[in-house]
């Protein structure tokens, strides 16, 4: 062992990407040091065409000269102009339509980019009050779901036998289907099963239909917020889903509530939270107490770990501190409250140290009416959180239940259970299912399928024939949201239009129109006289909202609560009796507790067949193409579980077997498993990817419990390779004699106090002596800034970039070989010990260095510097030496090892190619590619400016990542213009360049992360050293 190695052994890096790096694992070193994993030329090319590539090249060399002899290539191509060109279409120029999109209960105002009639990209609608210009990764992937090859092409009838086991289908016409359905409905006993309806038009149509047919409507959501809504009802008598007014909160306490990841409206919540994130006086503070390491937890200023079942206890502890010890509220003398608290006494002590309660309570008190307490996904913790919000005076201020609460999230498992009971008892004979998929996503899915089989007729309206559709008699294709009219009222008073952006691709019909058509045939009530969804929508905006229809279509949104949103309400009276429901039940803690959580990429699994989402690296685990059992390092060590080892997970009598992933930051008695995987009838992409964990959830008192489930785990002897994108692309790379590269300055953190003393705190500036003067830029000089203080790591930019730049998905096999193609990756660095780390997210794209190391090593000048400061990649010149990638210190270059559409045809099946952006070259096999700063958008803006004889305005060019960012962490602009927003931002001393010491002079500058906390994890050194030794002794948990 050399001295360097020795010294490294004793000192783990301050910021680390994975446990392997923290342990200084030789495997990690090996992977980090080599730019590419094993050359695939031999192993794989055989399957591509029967020729090993090099042999093929040898033969090619000889045959080229002969083949090209006198041969003039004249590829016959056709130009097919329109017969009658729609007047809004100009070939080569995009059209933009304001529309909206609903994902679960989360709503987005979007602008859809279409080219020659094809939607190709989605951006946020900046005038929309809910999400603004920000979007989620899923909202971006929404465009590809339009071209999902698994979509239904026309109405079909399933040829079911008695037991409904036969899944053969015949095509039918809508007329015939409508007639049969109407005849059946006349017999009565009709039920409609739907997800939360956030469209006022759909709600109206469904209500009319129910009135006309006597149907009963059952609302059920795959990812339920029923506990949140139920707790509101218990505490305040209103079954609402309040909006979290985070922009008014100076202190946020989230207890097992992932409000940035999947809870309610995460995009809006991140956006609102970021508004108070400006470092300086009045910067907000986020305390997270949680079991898993969620996206919210990774952004916490202070984070504590608890068991899932301790959520209520922690909140009760704070109530005790505030009421009993500090006597702050009028409830202080309430004996019933005291009795409940008394019950929790032991629990409270077990959950957190006493000092923590005192400290948090003090902070909460200091921010009365300016704080927000969020509970977990169970009724009792929600009730406790409500009580805290009430006694702190937050209700009506940061908890907005009247002015503009969320309209979705009304689905309940009780409703589904009622439907199942009705079917079993024969009280329901006909079921119409609107787009939900209980046969996959219900906690009691077997019960549902059995009950569905008893229905006389089941009608499924949806985009794909999925797990539920195959048990239905009629399967009627629904429009994709981009194909039909609609409206959305995501939050009370915020009305968005949904307008079609493409002619329906297939013979589909929207759910509303289906109900209208059936009502017409059967002459059911008022709906029989209705025209279509379009007239409903138009009527709503014109006569009910008194807006100009054209204006509404252009703007996409009518906000009737702009003023109300900013104002405050009076607090609602809290029903103390509700606290009884949160009273402590003497259930002993299980040894291990399981949390089933919706993953940020797949959520309820409804868009699982979109390859972008399958390949979307989870913002925390960075794993794609699988759901993994996440276990803490200590638990892994105790139970001898290795990374990728298959583990049998047993809850009661149900079990699944999944690969394990060792996740720092987890509570040691908690394990987690993502939902949304394990689809069986979703399509070629999603089928049998991961396991469906939903049936491990427990139904108790009619509600679904997904966290704190007592669980047994049993490691097996088999292993699975996980597609983890954070193993590669380590900028801390090589360890050379004398240079400790593991401790390079990549992410910089400072506490708020440090920042106030010195805005450039903790940034180590290098004194660089350069031998040459560098480029001079006379026109524009493009640059970018990324504010790490605003970046939450949500990774919407990753999918936005993929959508804009035609980036190929490559599949699990190639991702696990390090061949993913993302142009922007979001690195997640841990800091501190593996048990209790903080995390920092840093988006890394091509840094467009002035002194670019890649440019100097390209033997064919395929990557060159432009006069505007960008580093250009010229695909047609590239011969694939990969020297550039080897020499890139940021590891942002991606090589096309294969012809991916041929190697992974299921990920590129027709008609997914219709999404491709015609402004961006589709790269072929054998060429290098990387972030271009969205050069096509730069070109477009420059051309437009040229045509109008002006310069490009500041802010006119928005890169795809920038426009997708919910927190506006990314800013792009002209560095040569001293008045540009970017130039002014970069004048702040908080900005630094990545690996500045290499004198690459990157055009991307990062702003340090400011934590509103006392001490940084990176500065708490003694504890870390001790822990590290402990690991070493036991030999770690090595694969």
């Amino acid at each position, binding site marked *: 062992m050399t001295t360097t190695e020795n010294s490294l052994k004793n000192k783990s890096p301050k910021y680390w990407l994975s446990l392997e790096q923290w342990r200084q694992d030789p495997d990690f070193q090996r992977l980090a040091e080599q730019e590419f994993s094993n050359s695939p030329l031999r192993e794989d090319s055989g399957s591509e065409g029967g020729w090993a590539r090099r042999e093929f090249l040898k033969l090619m060399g000889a045959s080229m*000269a002969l083949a*090209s*002899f*006198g*041969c*003039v*290539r*004249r*590829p*016959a*191509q*056709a*130009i*097919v*102009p*329109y*017969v*009658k*060109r729609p007047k809004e279409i*100009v*070939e*080569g*120029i995009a059209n933009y339509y304001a529309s909206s999109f609903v994902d679960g209960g989360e709503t987005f105002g979007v602008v859809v980019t279409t080219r020659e009639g094809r939607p190709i990209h989605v951006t946020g609608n900046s005038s929309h009050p809910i999400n603004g210009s920000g979007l989620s990764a899923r909202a971006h992937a929404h465009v590809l779901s339009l071209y999902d090859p698994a979509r239904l092409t026309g109405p079909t009838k399933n040829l079911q036998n008695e037991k409904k086991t036969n899944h053969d289908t015949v095509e039918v016409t809508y007329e015939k289907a409508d007639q049969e359905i109407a005849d059946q409905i006349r017999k009565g006993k009709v039920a409609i099963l739907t997800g939360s309806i956030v469209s006022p038009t759909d709600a109206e149509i469904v209500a009319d239909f129910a009135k006309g047919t006597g149907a009963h409507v059952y609302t059920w959501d795959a990812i339920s917020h029923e506990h949140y809504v139920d707790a509101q009802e218990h505490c305040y008598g209103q079954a609402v889903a309040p909006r979290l007014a985070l922009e008014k909160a100076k202190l946020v306490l989230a207890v097992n509530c992932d409000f940035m990841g999947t809870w309610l409206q995460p995009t809006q919540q991140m956006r609102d939270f970021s508004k108070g994130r400006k470092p300086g006086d009045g910067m907000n503070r986020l305390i997270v107490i949680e079991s898993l390491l969620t996206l919210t937890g990774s952004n916490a200023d202070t984070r504590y770990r608890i068991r899932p079942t301790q959520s209520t206890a922690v909140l009760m502890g704070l109530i005790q501190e505030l009421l009993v010890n500090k006597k702050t509220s009028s409830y202080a003398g309430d004996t019933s409250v005291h009795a409940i608290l008394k019950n929790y006494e032991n629990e409270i002590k077990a959950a957190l140290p006493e000092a923590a309660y005192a400290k948090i309570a003090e902070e909460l008190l200091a921010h009365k009416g300016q704080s927000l307490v969020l509970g977990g996904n169970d009724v009792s913790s929600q009730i406790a959180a409500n009580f805290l919000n009430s006694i702190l005076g937050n209700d009506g201020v940061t908890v907005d239940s009247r002015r503009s609460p969320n309209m979705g999230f009304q689905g309940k498992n009780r409703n589904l259970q009622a439907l199942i009971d009705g079917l079993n008892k024969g009280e329901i004979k006909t079921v119409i299912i609107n787009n939900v998929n209980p046969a996959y996503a219900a906690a009691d899915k077997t019960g549902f399928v059995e009950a569905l089989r008893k229905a006389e007729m089941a009608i499924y309206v949806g985009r794909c024939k999925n797990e539920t559709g195959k048990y239905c008699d009629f399967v009627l294709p629904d429009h994709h949201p981009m194909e039909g009219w609609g409206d959305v009222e995501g939050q009370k008073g915020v009305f968005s239009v949904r307008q079609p952006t493409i002619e329906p691709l297939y013979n589909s019909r929207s759910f509303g129109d289906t109900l209208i058509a059936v009502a017409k045939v059967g002459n059911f009530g008022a709906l029989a006289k209705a025209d279509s969804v379009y007239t409903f929508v138009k009527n709503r905006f014109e006569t009910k909202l008194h807006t100009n229809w054209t204006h509404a279509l252009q703007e996409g949104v009518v906000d009737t609560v702009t003023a109300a949103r900013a104002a405050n309400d009076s607090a609602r009276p809290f029903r103390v009796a509700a606290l009884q429901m949160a009273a402590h039940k003497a259930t002993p803690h299980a040894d291990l507790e399981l949390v089933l959580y919706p993953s940020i990429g797949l959520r309820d699994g409804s868009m699982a067949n979109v390859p972008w989402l399958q390949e979307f690296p989870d913002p925390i685990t960075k794993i794609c193409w699988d759901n993994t059992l996440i276990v803490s390092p200590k638990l892994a060590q105790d139970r001898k579980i290795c990374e990728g080892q298959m583990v049998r997970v047993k809850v009661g009598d149900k079990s699944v077997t999944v690969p394990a992933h060792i996740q720092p930051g987890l509570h040691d008695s908690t394990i987690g498993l993502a939902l949304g995987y394990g689809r069986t009838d979703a399509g070629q992409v999603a089928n049998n990817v991961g396991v469906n964990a939903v049936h491990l959830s427990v139904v108790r008192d009619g509600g679904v419990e997904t966290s704190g489930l007592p669980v047994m785990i049993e490691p097996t002897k088999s292993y699975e390779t996980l597609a983890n994108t954070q193993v590669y692309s380590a900028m801390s790379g090589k360890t050379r004699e004398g240079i400790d590269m593991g401790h390079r300055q990549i992410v910089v953190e400072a506490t708020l106090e440090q920042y106030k003393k010195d805005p450039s705190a903790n940034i180590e500036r290098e004194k660089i002596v350069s031998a040459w003067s560098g480029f001079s830029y006379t026109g524009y000089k493009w640059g970018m800034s990324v504010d790490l203080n605003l970046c939450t790591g949500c990774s919407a930019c990753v999918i936005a970039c993929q959508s804009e730049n035609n980036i190929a998905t490559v599949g699990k096999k190639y991702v696990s070989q390090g061949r993913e193609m993302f142009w922007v990756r979001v690195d997640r660095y841990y800091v501190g010990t593996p048990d209790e780390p903080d995390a920092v997210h840093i988006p890394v794209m091509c840094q467009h260095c002035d002194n670019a190391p890649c440019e100097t090593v390209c033997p064919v000048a395929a990557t*060159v510097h*432009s*006069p505007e400061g*960008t580093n*250009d990649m*010229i*695909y*047609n*010149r590239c011969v694939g030496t990969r020297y550039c990638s080897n020499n890139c210190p940021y590891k942002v270059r991606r090589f096309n090892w294969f012809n991916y559409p041929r190697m992974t045809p299921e990920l590129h099946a027709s008609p997914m190619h219709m999404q491709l952006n015609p*402004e*961006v*070259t*589709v790269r072929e096999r054998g060429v290098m590619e990387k972030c*271009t700063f969205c*050069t*096509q958008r730069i*070109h477009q803006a420059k*051309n437009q400016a*040229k*045509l109008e004889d002006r310069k490009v305005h500041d802010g006119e060019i928005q890169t795809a990542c920038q426009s997708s960012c919910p927190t506006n962490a990314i800013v792009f602009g002209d560095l040569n213009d001293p008045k540009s927003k970017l130039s002014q931002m970069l004048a702040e001393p908080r900005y630094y360049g990545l690996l500045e010491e290499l004198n690459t002079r990157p055009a991307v500058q990062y702003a340090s992360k400011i934590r509103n906390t006392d001490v940084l994890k990176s500065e708490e050194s003694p504890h870390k050293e001790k822990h590290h030794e402990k690991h070493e002794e036991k030999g770690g948990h090595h694969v």
Partner: protein
Amino acid sequence: MAAKKIIGAVLGLGITFGFCVFVYAITNNKVVIGYNQNYEPTQPIPYSHALHAGKLGLNCKYCHTTAEISRHASVPPLNVCMNCHLTVRQVNGKDSPYIAQLVDAYMNDKPVQWQKVNLLPDHVKFNHAPHIKAGKQCQECHGPVETMDRVKQYQSFSMGYCVNCHRRPENNAPTNCSTCHY
């Protein structure tokens, strides 16, 4: 043995001769490999630019409307043809079968599959609008289209062709790679 030697010699000579012809052709621009200069495909309707643009004097931009604003000059949709051909059905006093073909396509909503004449590879991004804005005449690249009965690709549209013009100082045009390749 002798037969084999003769065959070998003939083959060798043949290949050498062929190679010489090849080199001659390449160096004297007799053959332009990979480009489509002078490519002149037959079209489904023998539309004559010589008649429309030449004799009748229609402005190019009457049909190719988007050249000033878009990357594509665009082949006109049939409704543009029908602006005139709604009434014009005869050529030299006789009913024209070709105009009938056009009217038929328009009436039955059948798009016409024109053969693409000017070809740029996918990795080249050309934009008409800034070139028109810079005052270039269509003919500078497309040749005397107003004299062509059947349109052909007049220039090679090779990279050299483009760069020659971009390099001239008076054009003040960019020459960095990503001007066209991205």
